[in-house]
């Protein structure tokens, strides 16, 4: 069976696996973005929160994904739970870092002028600091997404959702019928998902970057 025929004959399985792969990544990134941006906001004004959170997020990244997912099995069981949690924590570092960097990198005069005109800290954050730091924060989210799409393949080992199942199934039966097709389908599927997510972020970036930051002098 050629690769084309394989894809057509297994379309239902493949498309479901791809959809689940994308979904688990999307949920993990949404969680990581909410938590990570929140921590980054706290971290930009408090050095202790900043240093602790970045060190912790970096430490998590050094744990091999297979090990982390396996370690989570006693706590969250097989499947979606362990997959979601591990993907979420892997996504933290770029998001927290870029939020902190984005907020701290703002022109001090802009912030001082805002305070001097009577914007409260909360208003200043919502109306000035976050919109100006947004392009950098979004870049952090985008990097995390690309990273996590790859890691999500490992979830197959803990019975998680996604295209990883295709890859490891094929690899475990290497040499037998369709084993190469399965691995190839899983791998290419992940590449396609990565490209689609990237296009999505490109569009979001274009639509959400304040116009004043895009104009040419």
């Amino acid at each position, binding site marked *: 069976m050629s690769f084309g025929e394989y894809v057509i004959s297994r379309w239902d399985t493949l498309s479901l696996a791809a959809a689940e792969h994308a979904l688990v990544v999307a949920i993990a990134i949404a969680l990581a973005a909410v938590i990570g941006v929140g921590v980054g906001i706290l971290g930009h004004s408090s050095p202790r929160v900043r240093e602790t959170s970045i060190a912790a997020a970096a430490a998590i990244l050094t744990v091999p994904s297979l090990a982390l997912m396996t370690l989570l099995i006693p706590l969250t069981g097989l499947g979606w739970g362990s997959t979601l949690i591990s993907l979420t924590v892997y996504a933290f570092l770029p998001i927290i870092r870029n939020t902190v960097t984005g907020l701290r990198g703002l022109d001090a*005069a802009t912030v001082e*002028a*805002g305070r001097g*005109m009577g914007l409260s800290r909360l208003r200043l954050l919502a109306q000035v600091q976050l919109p100006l730091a947004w392009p950098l924060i979004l870049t952090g989210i985008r990097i995390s997404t690309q990273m996590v799409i790859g890691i999500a393949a490992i979830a197959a080992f803990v019975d998680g959702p996604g295209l990883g199942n295709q890859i490891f199934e094929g690899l475990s039966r290497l040499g037998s019928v369709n084993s190469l097709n399965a691995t190839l389908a899983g791998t290419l599927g992940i590449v396609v998902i990565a490209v689609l997510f990237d296009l999505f972020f490109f569009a979001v970036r274009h639509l959400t970057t*304040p116009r*004043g930051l895009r104009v040419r002098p």
Partner: protein
Amino acid sequence: MFDRDTDGVRIELRALTKHYPGQPAPAVDNITMDIPAGELVVFVGPSGCGKTTTMKMINRLVEPTSGEIRIGGKDVLSLDPDELRRHIGYAIQQVGLFPHQTVAQNIALVPKLLGWPQAKVDARVEELLALVSLEPSTFRDRYPRQLSGGQQQRVGVARALAADPPVMLMDEPFGATDPITREHLQNEFVRLQKQLRKTIIFVTHDFEEAIKLGDRIAVLREGSHIAQYDTPAAILSDPADDYVAGFIGQDATLKRLALVRVSDISIADPLPDLALPQVTAEASLREALDVMLAHGSDRCGTPSGVLTYAALCAAVGSRPEEAVSGGDVR
């Protein structure tokens, strides 16, 4: 918030001190001064003398360690800081416009915080842009990045004026522009303040600027100690000590001439003489002297008559013989 809400109000500083933790000496040490309503007072002094810190205590961007601040009789330290700042105009050297908002949105910030209706905000934006000589239809919808440095500083001043605050704090608001633009902005600002009569505290290290803009000048030394607090003319003609004299430089008399307009002095010979080089009534005596020197003449023509070198000497309180022989001209 303050008693008279758009014209200037009086500002009183009483034993105001800021001592940052861990520093041997206070940044601002026990300053007491009165700033009369509707006057522009310039704080001038070297970098690090505490002039900016003193100013920032007035809108509480810096919280005083001790002392008292009253604006229009109200105790500033008992007010909510954010609410207080909405009633004090604030302009700084780096301007700090919000780059993601249009010029109109930047100017409208404080009026919106104060809950003005949209129509009133729009009208105010138009009015202010015109006031700072920016064509509203051209500039309203531009973003800060699309403006030159001088245009940004004008918008900064318009933004500080937006809610018509009785008090303005300005920290070298024209500092970041080239000398030509700065001179232009200063001239416009003098004209503006004649109309507005706000109580303004203006911080600069440029003594020329202080003379040009100030109704009064406070020359500050280390720790925000007042070396001399008086009108520009009084400081120029009678500096309190060597420190103040050092700030003035060697050309105190020329600087005093620059303060007086041709129209300010009475002219002995009221017959216009068109054969002489001419100056306008609005020109300063310094410019008149420049014209005389350039033409090798000891007199020049003005719309109200002939201005002589002797009249210039009289205006600064010296007799021509002394001045010519290089004696003390004070």
